């Protein structure tokens, strides 16, 4: 059986499983559609949250970004896990006690203002839509590879599948489907990593293998994997893997922005409405992080080991010997993956100096210029290596058996689909439940509400697909922007709503708007207006940026502005009424948490 058939078989079988579960648990009433009747155990909920959370960004994109940058991209690892601490300590138990269905309902009630609710809905839609753009980038990469078609065609097919899939289930369908998806995706991520860790270090646990000695040194005896990696990448003129090259300010702000954003994203917070009790909400966040950590502790090992493998493949005789020959790439079976990925347009090479060899090195490095001149090299010949392909190509790069490659295909699609579905659900509930039923047409029937939810999903996915064709960055980078937006708008409002009795309606609205607008404008100034390439006023680099802060890190500043403005404006305007102070009191104490209250 060839690889293409095997991939289709794995992907097809996993899909049949998810769709089967979705049909079996199809949502009936609106209450089930949004919050699954609140009957979900913390461990089950944690697993579903993990699947929901670990998207194309975590699964497909993150290890690739770490692989090609090293230590500097540790921000992704700390940021996307550290946010759960904020969520567990500052938000989850209180929002569960509050006992409504959506984040914006809490903001509308706590700040006793339909305007505040409306602003929250807008913030949610902006952040979630940006997030879906990142997911669609990942969906395009995954479908493009496994159907062996171009990235663009893959994206269009993927969009149709995501839509059909999200429309089918509600949260309930999604909850049990996501448990299945978690199992598929964690196996798909860890099994190849275990194989590769065994090949390179003899350690079956990749997280430990990262810090072990490697035997793949070409007869130099054994050295630490990271020492070896540092040595070969610097030999080729790239920045060392383990040292810091980014300024501390940007790294701290970027990490903080991802953390706060994690605790401000609607599709994650919504999960904590579905557990039966306040104490369960506390445990749920912990269980979610357990399941997430299984992938996150493996990811840095995947990145480092893949970088080592790729470099060794490009320089089979060591960095001092001859580079790989074009003919070898075209004929040798261990280079087959390069030919298949070339079809997607995400990997390419060119023999610029016509010596029949492909030299992969950093042609931007001054130190390499001399060596290149001496050897007659005319620039880096591995001309395109899209970061987002690394995880999916990883088992092929390491020459693992066909079934592992098929499994990774299924896992990558599970990751992208589950999060896209969760986000579409958040967007559709924001539009139909909060905007239409809550504000514009309160007398809407349940049937009309479900219909408008589905129309909102269709519009959101169309926009995301359009922008996903020309994404503002690799999947994880686009997703990082969404986190910045959530960090600057939603999280501060939620936290102040619980921890302060003084912040009032005017303050909250002013805070959310200033945080959102500041962050959005800063991102657009660097990434282009509405993410359309070429319309940016500043280059998206640390040195060229407006305040010396990268657009991916600006969310942390936006959050500080939000806190400051909200507090300042509140102090200058009328105090909160007594019933709001009572509401805050009651949210702070677990006793008396009832079932779900629909309004």
């Amino acid at each position, binding site marked *: 059986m060839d690889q293409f058939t095997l991939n289709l078989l794995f992907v097809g079988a996993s899909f049949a499983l998810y769709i089967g579960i979705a049909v079996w648990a199809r949502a009936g009433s609106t209450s089930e559609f949004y919050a699954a009747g609140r009957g979900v155990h913390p461990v089950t909920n944690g697993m579903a949250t993990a699947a929901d959370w670990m998207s194309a960004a975590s699964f497909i994109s993150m290890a690739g970004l770490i692989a090609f940058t090293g230590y500097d991209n540790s921000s992704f690892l700390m940021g996307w896990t550290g946010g759960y601490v904020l969520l567990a300590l500052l938000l989850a138990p209180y929002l569960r006690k509050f006992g409504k269905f959506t984040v914006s309902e809490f903001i509308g009630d706590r700040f006793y203002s339909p305007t505040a609710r409306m602003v929250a809905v807008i913030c949610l839609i902006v952040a979630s839509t940006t997030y879906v753009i990142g997911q669609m980038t990942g969906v395009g990469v995954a479908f493009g590879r496994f159907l062996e078609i171009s990235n663009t065609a893959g994206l269009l097919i993927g969009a149709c599948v995501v839509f059909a899939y999200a429309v089918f289930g509600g949260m309930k369908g999604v909850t049990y489907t996501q448990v299945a998806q978690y199992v598929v995706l964690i196996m798909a991520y860890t099994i190849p990593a275990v194989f590769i860790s065994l090949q390179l270090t003899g350690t079956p646990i990749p997280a430990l293998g*990262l810090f072990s000695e490697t035997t793949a040194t070409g007869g130099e005896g054994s050295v630490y994997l990271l020492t070896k990696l540092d040595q070969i990448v610097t030999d080729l003129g790239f920045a060392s893997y383990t040292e810091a090259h980014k300024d501390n300010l940007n790294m701290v702000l970027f990490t903080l922005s991802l953390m706060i954003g994690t605790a401000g994203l609607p599709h994650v917070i919504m999960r904590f409405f579905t557990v039966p009790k306040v104490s369960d909400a506390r445990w749920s*966040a*912990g269980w979610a992080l357990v399941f997430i950590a299984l992938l996150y502790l493996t990811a840095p090992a995947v990145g480092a080991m893949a970088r080592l493998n790729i470099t060794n493949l490009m320089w089979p005789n060591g960095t001092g010997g001859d580079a790989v020959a074009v003919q070898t790439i075209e004929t040798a079976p261990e280079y087959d993956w390069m030919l298949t990925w070339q079809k997607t347009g995400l990997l390419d090479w060119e023999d610029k100096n016509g010596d029949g060899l492909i030299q992969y090195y950093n042609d931007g490095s001054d130190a390499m210029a001399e060596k290149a001149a001496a050897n007659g090299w005319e620039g880096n010949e591995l001309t395109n290596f899209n970061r987002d392909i690394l995880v999916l190509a990883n088992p092929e790069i390491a020459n693992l058996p066909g079934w592992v490659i098929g499994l990774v295909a299924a896992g990558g699609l599970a990751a992208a689909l589950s999060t896209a579905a969760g986000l579409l659900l958040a967007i559709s509930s924001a539009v139909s439940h909060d905007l239409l039923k809550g504000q514009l047409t309160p007398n809407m029937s349940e049937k009309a509400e479900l219909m408008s939810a589905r129309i909102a999903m269709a519009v959101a996915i169309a926009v995301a697909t359009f922008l996903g064709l020309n994404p503002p960055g690799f999947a994880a980078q686009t997703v990082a922007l969404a986190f910045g937006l959530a960090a600057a708008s939603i999280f501060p409002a939620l936290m102040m709503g619980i921890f302060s009795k003084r912040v009032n309606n005017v303050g909250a609205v002013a805070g959310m708007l200033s945080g959102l607008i500041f962050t959005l404008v800063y991102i657009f100034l660097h990434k282009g207006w509405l993410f359309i390439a070429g319309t940016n006023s500043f280059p998206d680099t640390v040195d060229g940026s407006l305040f010396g802060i990268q657009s991916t890190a600006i969310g942390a500043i936006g959050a500080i502005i939000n806190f400051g403005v909200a507090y300042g404006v509140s102090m200058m305007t009328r105090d909160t009424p007594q019933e709001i102070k009572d509401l805050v009191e009651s949210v702070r*104490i677990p006793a008396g948490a009832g079932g779900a209250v629909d309004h």
Partner: protein
Amino acid sequence: MAEQSTHAKVAEDGAGYWAANVRIIMISLIIWALVSFGFGILLRPLLSGFAVGGTDLGFWFAQQGSILVFLALIFFYAWRMNRLDREYGVEED
């Protein structure tokens, strides 16, 4: 009268419960920031003396250590708060 004093006592207990909760949160968040922003980024040069598998302790904290500490923090908080709920008698039925 009796009813009023019970009411006042509940309010006082509520304040005590909340203050205790905020204290636990503050301590947890200091540890949270120390392992990530501290050991992982800003204080990494100070930890360069501790070698871990071909690199230093700061690199380990940035890529793995902080995640393990985050996990411990969340489970500690859930356990501690569920006990605090019972101490103040504010747990759910």
